[in-house]
């Protein structure tokens, strides 16, 4: 039954891709398909994902019905690579981790499909869009549901492909096509690490199957027989893969550029699901990371730095989608911080809540862009709440959720991560996380205020056309807004639950427990009773961020001018605005030398290799030109030549 989750989006992609995105539709339906074609395409696309969402839900409830230790479904489809020692099966694994991921991906994916029906209505490549979107869901489900590293790699590469196709969806625009290529190439660097990790896993464990690998790792005798360095190497290489896919420093540069794709794509792929594949990888391989404190520490350092760094860039960006993109990078940093301290379930919890509020924010920004006919610069917005109240309200919910306002989802998940980081004794990283939380609150509120509040800075022509988005777009927004508010209660912390007398706390962590091989399960337990203080500090940080943004952008905008007079702040602003010159650094260090090297090689190719080939061909041509005169078509010449030849042969033979 698990395979149906994967199968439906594939069928949707095949129908839309082979039938509606190609000239085949004209052959079958004739030319008059305008009236119903888009409806059919949208219906097929949404329905395919809805079906797999329903199957995931059914499986999830079946899983819930089992005892925690038995929560595992495996479906063998066929043996994919039988090759000596390497025996890879094409089979699916549905455990609690896969269940959570697939529920989030299919349901949030379904909402975004529905949203796309409205958002892409005017696009000429409607069928191609839904083909890619379904293809993405297909590969993502392979990634999440595969029961070995080879299948995860297939999904991993597949989502990379879908992401490339969708970022460069409007490929007539050279810049967008370039963004697609950039995403793909940067991802390849991470994939390289991932594939090395897979090789190493096969070398060390002799298998790629999750259960066999982790089973061996849990076996003390086996662990003694292998070197810990190889485990650390595997963990670090896996993390390189995750860094590429999940846009961590230093490979985060592709994600902000990925905003060139349609906004619904940014919501689905570059915020809610695909970028969390790295976190899923970390949670899936939790035992490997747990056994290597070195790797964990590297993860923690990179993650904390990324979280802060991206937040520092997000503060000054003026493109509504860029702000959200950097905030995604920053939030992914939080998730990896959780991986780094071994709180895998909490990382997945943040994946879930982040999927809700970030999808909401992106779809909201899409609604804004849609209603402003393509405007993305927040300097040309303002006062939009009057025109598009529903979008404004839902966007505010998302903003407050990500800012960490108490009782909304982001608060619980982010706070759990910070609390565990503190509890593990990494006070410095906790402090970085706390500052980042304050920055997050600040830049998200800045985004909200500049977009929806204050005076309108729109061009009059644009302002007259502003309209609320159609129902197919607003309904997903409302649903996601509810999820953003309530999603946090999946992981309602125990120390709070104890205080107010609720027993069912930490639901999601408890559910995920069966997928996480750990001697000591890190969950907000009794020792967190003292962490009311930490929670309060988080609230204070978020509150400070929100209030500062409110003061600067709503109460007294003149503060900005006085701040701009300080040269130090100006320099900082310039650095942040220029994204700390990371792109420029890569251009100078890698892209330009590489292009130079390539042009050298191309010279060699043109004059060296091509010269050789052309030389041979011109030799043949010239020789031919010279001897062509002997073939003059005159019969008597040929006869003479034959006679002379015969005489010569006779002479040679007889003399």
């Amino acid at each position, binding site marked *: 039954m698990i395979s149906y989750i994967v199968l439906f989006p594939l069928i949707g992609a095949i129908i839309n891709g082979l039938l509606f995105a190609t000239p085949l539709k004209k052959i079958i339906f004739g030319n008059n398909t305008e009236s119903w074609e888009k409806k059919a395409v949208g219906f097929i696309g949404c329905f395919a994902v809805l079906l797999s969402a329903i199957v995931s839900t059914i499986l999830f409830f079946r899983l819930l019905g089992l005892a925690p230790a038995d929560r595992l479904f495996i479906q063998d489809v066929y043996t994919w690579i039988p090759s000596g020692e390497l025996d890879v099966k094409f089979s699916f694994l549905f455990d609690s981790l896969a269940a959570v991921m697939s529920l989030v991906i299919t349901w949030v994916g379904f909402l975004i499909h529905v949203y796309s029906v409205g958002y892409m209505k005017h696009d000429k490549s409607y069928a191609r869009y839904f083909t890619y979107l379904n293809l993405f869901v297909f590969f993502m489900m392979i990634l999440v549901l595969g029961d070995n590293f080879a299948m995860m790699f297939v999904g991993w590469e597949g989502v990379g492909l879908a992401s490339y196709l969708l970022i460069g969806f409007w490929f007539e625009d050279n810049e967008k096509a370039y963004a697609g290529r950039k995403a793909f190439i940067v991802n390849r660097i991470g994939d390289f690490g991932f594939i090395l990790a897979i090789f190493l896993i096969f070398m060390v464990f002799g298998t790629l199957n999750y259960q066999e690998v982790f089973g061996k790792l849990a076996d003390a005798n086996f662990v003694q027989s292998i070197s810990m360095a190889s485990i650390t190497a595997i963990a670090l290489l896996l993390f390189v893969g995750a860094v590429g896919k999940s846009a961590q420093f230093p490979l985060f540069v592709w994600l902000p550029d990925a905003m060139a794709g349609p906004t619904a794509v940014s919501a689905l792929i570059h915020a809610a699901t695909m970028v969390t594949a790295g976190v899923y990888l970390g949670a899936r391989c939790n035992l490997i990371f747990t056994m290597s404190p070195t790797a964990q520490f590297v993860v923690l350092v990179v993650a904390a730095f990324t979280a802060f760094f991206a937040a520092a860039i997000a503060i000054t960006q003026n493109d509504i989608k860029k702000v959200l993109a950097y905030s995604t990078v920053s939030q992914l940093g939080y998730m990896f911080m959780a991986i780094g301290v071994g709180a895998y379930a909490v990382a997945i919890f943040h994946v879930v809540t982040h999927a809700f509020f970030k999808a909401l924010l992106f779809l909201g920004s899409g609604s804004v862009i849609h209603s402003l006919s393509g405007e993305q610069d927040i300097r040309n917005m303002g006062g939009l709440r009057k025109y598009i109240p529903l979008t404004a309200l839902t966007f505010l919910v998302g903003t407050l959720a990500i800012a960490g306002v108490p009782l909304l989802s982001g608060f619980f998940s982010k706070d759990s991560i910070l609390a565990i980081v503190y509890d593990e004794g990494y006070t410095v990283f906790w402090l970085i996380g706390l500052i980042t939380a304050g920055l997050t609150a600040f830049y998200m509120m800045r985004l909200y205020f500049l977009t929806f509040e204050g005076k309108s800075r729109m061009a009059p022509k644009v302002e007259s056309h502003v309209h609320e988005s159609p129902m197919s777009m607003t309904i997903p927004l409302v649903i996601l807004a509810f999820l953003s508010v309530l999603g946090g209660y999946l992981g309602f912390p125990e120390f709070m639950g104890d205080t107010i007398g609720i027993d069912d706390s930490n639901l999601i962590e408890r559910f995920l427990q069966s997928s996480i091989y750990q001697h000591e399960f890190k969950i907000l337990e009794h020792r967190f009773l003292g962490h009311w203080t930490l929670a309060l500090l988080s609230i204070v940080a978020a509150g400070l961020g929100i209030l500062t943004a409110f003061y600067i952008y709503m109460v007294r905008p003149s503060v900005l001018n006085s701040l701009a007079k300080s040269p130090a702040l100006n320099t900082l602003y310039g650095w942040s605005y220029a994204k700390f010159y990371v792109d420029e650094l890569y251009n100078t260090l890698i892209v330009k030398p590489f292009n130079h090297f390539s042009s050298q090689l191309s010279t060699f190719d043109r004059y060296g290799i091509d010269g050789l080939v052309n030389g041979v061909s011109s030799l043949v041509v010239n020789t031919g030109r010279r001897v062509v005169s002997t073939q003059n078509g005159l019969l*008597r010449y040929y006869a003479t030549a034959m006679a002379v030849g015969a005489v010569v042969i006779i002479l040679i033979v007889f003399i």
Partner: protein
Amino acid sequence: MEVTLNHYIVLSVILFVIGTYGVLTRRNLIVVLMSLELMLNSCNLAFISFAYFLGDLTGQIFMIMAITVAAAEVAVGLAFVVLIYNHNNSLDIDILKLLRG
């Protein structure tokens, strides 16, 4: 004077060389064909001479085969000649150089 095998062979060679000369120098297609026949028949002469002097019938049979084939060849060749004449209004073989490289 007794006629020996050598006489026949010399005659055959003389006929063959005359034929070759004709093929190489003449421009009229019919004359070329006739020269070709001459070369063929010089060979036939050599065949029967050997057959006669060696007392072996193989040469004679071979000669009959060659004449049969030559008859067919002439029939086809003359048909070509007629067609070429209709087409070009001339039998100059130097006109026939469409296969020039």
